């Protein structure tokens, strides 16, 4: 009970509490602290009431399912040799985790999304930073139009964006193939070597504007006097951008970086949409696809749960590491 209890208006708030139980000879002080604690209890109760609806749902949707998944990942369903009789669930310890970490398709999937993230995240964030800086600079016109134009793809659901780009990759329908052929570059967007870039393009298209807006917003909160001083010293726009603005939006870049890393590990919708069109995407192309395939293709819920837990841990480690790394560098 800190700041609020000391606030000057509190004695007034005490007024409704009747003070019949203390005699005229006693000091006022003790009664005040007693009614203060009653007030505190009342306010704690209100806080609990306000927190309860979210809290209950949070338990039901986050805490309990995660606990349940961890629990499931420690068991295994055993069927008797001939497949007769009811399957039995037995405790498996960390066997499922050993299976996940030694599964070559899982490791390949992880390698694939890491490679994807190493290329796609810097490209996307670099583009977002460039656009934010350009829109913040004095030489840009039509800022409002551009801001909306860049942000618009974010309003398109990921799956629909993937369906849309799938058409743009489809030979026969795609105008991109026609354009490519006319300048002598015949690219098959769905081929084995190119497919990861094609997926990266969909993600970049969808999320650049969103990241740009976060960076742009943080640029807007920088006091303008800062640039004016640098300008008086004869700094060019480029040098102001690089030496003053970029360091100032570092927290925003860190934030977008963390969200992008999280997004990379959960890559799922885009490859799922492109899958029927190409042989280059297998049913366990990314780790989340593998988990889905294990649960719904093979009915191996225990293995699927272990994959989900490993991925959640990896997400935590990677985003936490990135946070540490980027805050360390700024000191």
């Amino acid at each position: 009970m800190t700041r609020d209890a000391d606030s000057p208006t509190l004695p007034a708030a005490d007024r409704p509490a009747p003070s019949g139980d203390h005699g005229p000879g006693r000091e006022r002080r003790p009664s005040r602290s007693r009614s203060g604690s009653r007030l505190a209890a009342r306010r704690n109760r209100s806080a609990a009431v306000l927190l309860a609806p979210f809290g209950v749902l949070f338990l039901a949707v986050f805490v309990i399912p995660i606990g349940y998944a961890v629990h499931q990942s420690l068991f295994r369903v055993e069927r008797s040799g001939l497949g007769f009789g009811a399957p039995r669930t037995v405790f498996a310890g960390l066997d499922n985790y050993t299976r996940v970490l030694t599964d070559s398709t899982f490791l390949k999937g992880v390698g694939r999304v890491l490679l994807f993230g190493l290329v796609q995240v810097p490209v996307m964030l670099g583009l977002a930073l460039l656009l934010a800086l350009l829109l913040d600079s004095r030489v840009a016109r039509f800022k409002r139009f551009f801001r909306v134009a860049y942000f618009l793809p974010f309003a398109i659901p990921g799956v629909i964006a993937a369906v849309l780009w799938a058409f743009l990759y489809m030979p026969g329908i795609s105008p991109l193939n026609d354009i490519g052929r006319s300048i002598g570059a015949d690219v098959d967007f769905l081929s084995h070597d190119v497919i990861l870039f094609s997926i990266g393009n969909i993600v970049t298209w969808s999320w650049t504007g969103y990241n740009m807006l976060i960076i742009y917003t943080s640029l807007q909160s920088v006091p303008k006097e800062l640039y004016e001083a640098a300008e008086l010293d004869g700094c060019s726009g480029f040098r102001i951008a690089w030496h003053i603005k970029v360091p100032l939006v570092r927290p925003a870049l860190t934030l977008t970086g963390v969200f992008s890393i999280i997004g990379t590990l959960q890559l799922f919708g885009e490859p799922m949409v492109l899958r029927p069109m190409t042989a280059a995407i297998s049913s366990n192309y990314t780790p989340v696809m593998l988990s889905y395939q294990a649960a719904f293709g093979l009915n191996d819920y225990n293995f699927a749960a272990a994959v989900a837990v490993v991925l959640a841990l990896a997400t935590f480690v990677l985003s936490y590491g990135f946070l540490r790394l980027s805050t360390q560098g700024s000191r």
Partner: protein
Amino acid sequence: MSTQPTARHRRSDPGRAAPPARRRGTSAARLSTTVLLFAIAGYFLLPIWWLIVSATKSNGDLFGSNGFWFGSHFHLADNLTKVFRHSDGIFGRWLLNSLLYCGAGALVATLFAAMAGYALAKYPFKGREGVFAVILGAVLIPPPLLALPLYLLASSTGLVNTYWSVLIPSAVTPFGVYLARVYAEASVPDELTDAARVDGAGELRIFFTIALRLMSPALVTICLFQFVGIWNNFFLPLMMLADDSRWPLTLGLYFWNSQLRDQPWYDIVVTGSLVSVVPLCIAFLALQRFWRSGLSAGSLKS
């Protein structure tokens, strides 16, 4: 990171609000920047343009004509009829389902997040920071990773393949609680709530009549983000809903798209995609304006 939302709410367009700044860029720099910005805008807008143009084409024109321009016949009305008549008109049902999931989910999620965020901002109870840290940690858990555990739990409680299996998870937004807390701290003055207490108002009444109104710009932001988040969440309904009458639009279009190899209903998928995108884009642009005016109103107070 913690300054992010306040910064956003306090922002004002420098070109308009600030006194006219000296324009120092040369005209060459201005021209090249504008050309570059337009070229990049092309990257973001041309696919949407392609979708609009393609929704007016017959199957034949989709393959035969220039992708970025209209075909020989204008087939939009035909295509729309086809989309809504296909498989006994299930597309309309998907549209309504999506609106139900996103509308109800986002509204409830916003209200609950506002309550929790306000409580975390204004009531200094024991363990408050611990509770907040757990909620923030949940922001880092990607939805697809949560969907499988949710599915396992839902299938053991018999909720699988019901509307609730998608609605309940949609009503929770830890990120919204974070935003609501930061915004409540900045925009709901203690003097005001204390004054209301003096007048004898109960805590809940103070929240519903005073705090909720002061927090409304942040609530629009939370609602918008949650709406888009639910509309975007593909993995959860994919896992939970086996019965196509309960699918949201995205799942239905995903299914139609996955059948393309056997069923050449390209026109239907393209037009259906456009229909699924248009309401959201309009809502987005409209809400952005509302959001912006809300933000500038909020910035006057803080």
